[in-house]
C-alpha cells in the first residue's frame, strides 16, 4: 500500500470536500430559515460564475471588482427569487416547492447558457497552477484556496448568526409562527437567507470555475452539495463543513481505488451511495435536528 499516495489523495480530497461544503452551505442557509430544499443551488453556482465572467469580459472590470459586482447582483437575484417565486408558494405541499426549485434549476441553467453560450471558458483569478509541495505531497493550490475560503465563509456565518439579524434568522428557523407573532418579518428573513445563499453560490462558482472552467458542469455540483448538506444535517452549517471534509476524503480515496475496477466515474456513485446510506441510517444527518421532518 502506497501511504504517500493515500495521504495525498486524502488531503486533496479533504480540500475538495471543503469546496463542496461551500455549495452545501447555500442549501443549508435556505433550509434553515424556510425548510425549502433548494435544488437550484447548482445552477445558482453556475450563474454566479457566468455573471463574474460577464462583468470582467464584457465591461472590462478587473477580476476582483467583477467578483464584488457579481456578488451584489446575485444578492439581488436571491431576493428576487424569494419575492417572485417562493413567497406565493408558502404553505403549499412540499412537492410543489421541490418542483419549483427544479423549475428554477432548469430556468437558471438554460437561461445562462442562452445568454452566454455553452463553450467552456477559463476563470482567471490569479491562482498559479504550480503544485504546492507539503513534504512529498503534491497539493493543488486552487483547492487549498477554495478550502481556505470555505472555512472563512463558515467563520463569517458563525459570527453573523450572533448579530441581531442573525438572531432573527435563528428565531425564524426555530419556529415560523412564533417568530411571526413576536413581530419578526419572516418574509424578509427568508429573503435574506436566499440572498446569502446566492452570495455563497457566487463564491463557490468563482472558486470551482477557477479549477474546472466556467461551463454547464458547474450545475452538477448540486448532487455533491445535496449529499454534503444531508450528511451534515440539513440545518447545520458546521455539519455542512465537517460533512464536506468527510465526503471529500471518502470520495477521493474510494474514487482512486474504485476507478480502475469500475472503469471511471465512480465518484458520482460514491456520492449517491453516501446519500442513500445517510438517509437510511441517520436521516437527520450528523448534526441535524431530529424534529426537522415536515409531517
Amino acid at each position: 500500500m502506497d501511504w504517500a499516495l493515500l495521504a495525498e489523495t486524502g488531503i486533496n480530497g479533504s480540500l475538495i470536500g471543503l469546496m463542496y461544503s461551500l455549495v452545501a452551505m447555500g442549501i443549508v442557509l435556505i433550509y434553515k430559515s424556510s425548510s425549502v430544499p433548494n435544488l437550484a443551488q447548482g445552477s445558482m453556482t453556475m450563474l454566479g460564475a457566468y455573471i463574474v465572467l460577464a462583468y470582467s469580459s464584457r465591461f472590462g472590470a478587473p477580476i476582483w471588482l467583477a467578483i464584488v459586482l457579481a456578488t451584489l447582483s446575485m444578492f439581488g437575484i436571491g431576493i428576487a427569487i424569494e419575492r417572485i417565486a417562493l413567497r406565493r408558494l408558502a404553505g403549499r405541499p412540499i412537492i410543489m416547492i421541490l418542483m419549483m426549485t427544479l423549475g428554477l434549476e432548469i430556468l437558471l441553467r438554460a437561461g445562462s447558457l442562452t445568454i452566454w453560450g455553452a463553450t467552456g471558458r477559463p476563470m482567471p483569478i490569479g491562482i498559479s497552477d504550480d503544485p504546492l509541495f507539503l513534504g512529498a505531497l503534491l497539493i493543488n493550490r486552487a483547492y487549498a484556496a477554495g478550502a481556505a475560503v470555505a472555512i472563512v465563509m463558515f467563520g463569517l456565518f458563525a459570527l453573523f448568526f450572533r448579530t441581531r439579524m442573525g438572531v432573527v434568522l435563528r428565531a425564524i428557523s426555530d419556529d415560523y409562527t412564533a417568530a411571526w407573532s413576536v413581530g419578526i418579518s419572516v418574509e424578509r428573513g427568508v429573503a435574506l437567507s436566499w440572498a446569502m445563499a446566492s452570495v455563497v453560490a457566487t463564491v463557490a462558482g468563482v472558486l470551482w470555475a477557477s479549477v474546472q472552467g466556467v461551463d454547464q458542469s458547474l450545475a452538477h455540483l448540486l448532487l455533491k452539495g445535496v449529499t454534503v448538506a444531508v450528511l451534515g444535517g440539513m440545518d447545520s452549517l458546521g455539519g455542512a463543513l465537517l460533512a464536506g471534509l468527510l465526503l471529500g476524503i471518502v470520495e477521493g480515496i474510494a474514487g482512486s481505488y474504485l476507478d480502475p475496477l469500475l472503469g471511471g466515474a465512480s465518484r458520482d456513485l460514491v456520492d449517491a451511495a453516501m446519500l442513500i446510506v445517510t438517509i437510511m441510517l441517520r436521516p437527520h444527518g450528523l448534526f441535524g435536528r431530529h424534529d426537522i421532518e415536515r409531517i
Partner: protein
Amino acid sequence: MFFRQAGVYHTNYVADRALFPVAADRWIIAMILALGVAAPFMFSSLYLSSYLLPWLVWTAGALGLNLILGWAGQFHLGYAAIMGIGAYATVHANRFGVPWEFSIVIGGVSAAVIGSCFAFAALRVKGLYLALSTLALQFVMDWTISHVPAISGGTQATLQAPDIRVLGQPIVSDAGLYYVALVWCVLVTLFMLNLRRTALGRALVAVREKDFAAAVIGVNSFYFKLVAFSTSSFIGGVSGAILIGTFYHAVTPEQFSVDVSIQVLAMVIVGGLGSIIGSYFGAAFILLMPGVMNSFISWGAARFGVSLSIEALAHLPQALYGALIISFLLVEPLGLGKIYKNVRDYLLVWPFGYVKK
C-alpha cells in the same frame, strides 16, 4: 347545459356506483374513444407516430407516477429509472426468445421488484428525504445501466429492440403500433378510474393525507406504500417497454436519464396531482411544448428582426420550459385538470352561475 344533472336519479345500486353518473361525460368519453380507435384512418402517419403515439404512452407513464405521487403521496424523482428498468428487462427477455406479451410482463415485474426497494426507503423516511433518496437511486440506476455492458449492450450503449409480435404476428405498421399504445393507455386509465372506488384507492388516499392517522384507523400504511410503489413501478416498467417497442425502437441510457424523470414529474404537476384527465393534458403539454416553443421563437426572431445565435436557439426553449413550470406552480398549482374541472363546473349549472356547485 352540456353536463345536465336533471334526470339523474339513482334508483338502484349499479346506477349509484356508476363511474360517470352524468350522461354528457359518458358521451364525451365514447366519442373520444371512437376518435382514438379511428385515428389511424383520419390522421397522416406522421401525426400518428410522432404525436399521438408518444402522447398515449407518456400518458400511461404519467398516470403510473400519479398513482404514487397523487394518490399515495410518496415522492418519486426516479421514475425514468423505473421505466428504463422495464424497457431493458423487456428488450433482453425479448432477445432471449420470450414472446413479447410475456416479456413486457417480465419487464413490468422486474421494474416492480426494484421499484419496491424504493418503498423500503419510504418506510424509513418521507417528504424531502424520500425525494432525495429516489433521486440518488436514479443516479445509481443511470450509472449501472450505462456502465454495465451486459445491460446496455456494449460500447455504443444502444440496444436494438426486436419487433413487437403479438400472438406471433409481427406488428410493423404505424397503425398497429398505435393500437398497442392505445390499448395500454386505455387499460391504465381504466385501472386508475376504478382505483378510487376500491378499498385500495381509499387506503392510499388515507396514507397520503396522514399516515399516522391512517395507521390509527387500521390502514397498514407500510403495506399500502409497498403496494403503491410496486403497482406504479409495474405501470412505469410496462410503459417504458411499450415506449421502446413502439416509438424509439432502440434503447439507450439517455432515454431514461434524470432529465426524463423531471419531465414526467412536470407532466404530473402541470396536469394536476391525482387527476386522471390532467395526466392526459399534462403529457400533451410537456410533449408538444418544445415544438411549439421552437416555432414561436423562430417566428418571434423573424418578426422582430433579432438574430439569435445557434446556442441561444438551442437553450432558449429549455429556459422557457423551466419558466413555464414555475408559472404553472404560481398561477394554477392544481394543474390543467383543475382548469378543465372549473369549466365543467361552470357548464354544469349554466346559465345559473350563482347556484352552489
